[in-house]
């Protein structure tokens, strides 16, 4: 009798707590969803209806806005460029920054602390004239107006923050596995690749999402260093819907929706690693 009451008490307490948690989560979720839905619904309206008809469900679905945005924005090639830039920059950053962060966290060498501090300081000083500076620099290196020049610049942009993120997590990770691998005769590179990186999957996923978003949304540097439309990323094409005076809102919103999709996809892929990281780490062990 008493036990039943007790169980009942715990159950109802749990239900109340869970309901409260859900209420909180749902109210935050609504504010997050609203602008997304607003953007999508605007992308299906006409220019004159967009501010007249404020309901989220348009009375007429103009799907042709997407076709128009795709064509007029010249999205085809730019889309492809953006994917190439994003993939190569993120790949570069993940490899380079995880190596450096691993070294700062685990390996002993003269000047390691100093170097780490320099990287951190760099993260904090914004360079206001950096576009002009980079332009002049790339010009001298004959890398201006080349995709490689752009990719290297963008790798540099994400480097410091990624090192900082990764080092924090490497510091947190247990060292026992690495010690075991060392005793088994694994090289340092081997330990980094086979032991440290798999363990760091959750934070690597964060690094991927963080940098993918940054590269995907970048347009100013691209616009400044490329003199050729065939190298331009997607965001540059998108800017043309947003004129100094006339803004074509439906096409802009359609374009923004198209550009948001791949990033959401990357996030969906990556968040699995953020969640699964632990179990996989356990399997390695």
């Amino acid at each position, binding site marked *: 009798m008493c036990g039943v009451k007790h169980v009942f008490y715990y159950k109802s307490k749990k239900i109340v707590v869970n309901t409260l948690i859900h209420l909180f989560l749902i109210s935050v979720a609504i504010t997050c969803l609203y602008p997304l839905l607003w953007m999508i619904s605007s992308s299906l309206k006409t220019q004159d209806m967009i501010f007249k008809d404020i309901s989220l469900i348009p009375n007429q679905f103009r799907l042709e806005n997407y076709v128009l945005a795709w064509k007029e924005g010249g999205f085809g090639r730019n889309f492809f460029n953006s994917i190439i830039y994003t993939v190569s920059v993120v790949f570069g950053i993940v490899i380079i920054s995880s190596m450096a962060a691993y070294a700062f966290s685990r390996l002993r060498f003269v000047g390691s602390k100093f170097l780490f501090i320099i990287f951190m300081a760099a993260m904090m000083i914004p360079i206001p004239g950096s576009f002009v500076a980079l332009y002049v620099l790339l010009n001298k290196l004959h890398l201006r107006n080349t995709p*490689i020049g752009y990719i290297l610049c963008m790798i540099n942009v994400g480097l410091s923050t990624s090192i900082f993120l990764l080092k924090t997590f490497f510091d947190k990770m247990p060292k026992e596995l690495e010690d075991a691998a060392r005793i088994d005769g694994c090289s340092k590179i081997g330990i980094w690749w086979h032991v440290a990186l798999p363990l760091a999957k959750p934070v690597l996923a964060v690094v991927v999402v963080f940098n993918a978003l940054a590269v995907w949304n970048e*347009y100013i540097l691209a616009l400044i260093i490329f003199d050729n439309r065939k190298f331009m990323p997607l965001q540059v094409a998108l800017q043309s819907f947003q004129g100094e005076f006339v803004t074509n809102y439906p096409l802009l919103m359609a374009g923004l929706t198209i550009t948001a999709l791949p990033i959401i996809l990357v996030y969906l892929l990556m968040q699995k690693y953020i969640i699964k990281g632990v179990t996989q780490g356990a399997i390695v062990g």
Partner: protein
Amino acid sequence: MLFKNVLLGVFFCFSVLGCSGQKCDLKPAITIWHWMTDRDATFQELAEKYETLTGVKVSFELYAPSDAYSQKIRAAAQGINLPDVFGILGEKRDFASFIKAGHILELTSYMEANNNNWKNNFFPKALAVNEFAPGNSYGINPGIFGVPIDIMTIQMVYNKKLFSQLGLNPNRPPKTIKEFLEIGAKIQAAGMQGLVSGWGEVWMIDCIANNYAFNIMGKDKVLATIKGQVPYTDPDWITVLSIFKQMKESGIFAQGLVTMINKSAEQLFANEKAVFAFNGSWCVNVYKGMNPGLEYGAMLPPQASEKYPMAIWGGAGSSFMVNARSKNKEEAVKFLVWLTGQDQQAYLAQATNNLPANKNSLSKIPDILAQFSRGMDYATHPNIWGVSEFSPVIEALDRGIQSIIIGEKTPEAVAIEVQKIKEREMAKKKAR
């Protein structure tokens, strides 16, 4: 490593494809960089037409938004990579710096050839923006350095339907500030919204403040203030600042005007949510897209004094400059002569709802644009004054007006602050 090789390969393919696409003929090709998203399609059409006419290939390359374009031009100027033709965004001071650095070809001789044949096509005020007058304070030899492509004026517009609802004559906009303020009371009583404009992006505040300064004290006194001969604490300037206080108190301002973005202001006016708007002639194109049936008229800002005529900002909307270091500069000039010809200008104006820079092309434009173009008689612009105010002073004035509107400061207090900064800047300049 494999990945990088693949990447290189992909880009190699790109470049091969890109090259084979173009025919490499002997005729020179002209490259033009611009930032005008709304005119890009029309520019491309005109370029094709020109190629069939002359065989010279012209490629217009769009780099938007204008902020990024402006940075690109400056970076390219540092690397001496500017295209054959480009536009400069910024103040006259920046224009002068480009000229001094040898980036811009002087066009006076082309303009004045054959009895001023080219020069006479333009509205003189449009040309003046690209001109350096004798004795200008920038140290540039007098001459013309740019070609205006279109003109603009910044005026007020009013909604005719809402005017009728307020019991006002839709064909008789207010002429004096007194009438204007009275309408403010009516708007409040009717629960409507009055004036909307992009006053969050402060430059439009600067514009209307200048308009009233010209109206109240005349051009000479405004220029004397800029030269430092008249202080901002002068009673006339306080009158100018007080106008904003009066307008605020009359209820003529829409809610949130002080932090409004021009794009939202345009939405509100286009959707008949506001009675007045303060906007440039580009708005015709914007309103047409958002609400083709909107009935509205253009008007000068209602005058505050009868001593001097009302002034508005106007002149060249956008201009092109020829790169002095370009090997195609002769061809580039020829193209610009063609582009500013009567027919091309009329076509450009029609297709993009802008005002043509060629005064002979005005005949076929819609009525509302014609109303805007009539404002050219009252037009002036800081770029034709021959002197510039210090940026911190302009900033202090604009911020001060925002403070007056939100009731944070009195006109007198703002005048004193602005004058303080003016004196500081003048002292700094002397020290140099």
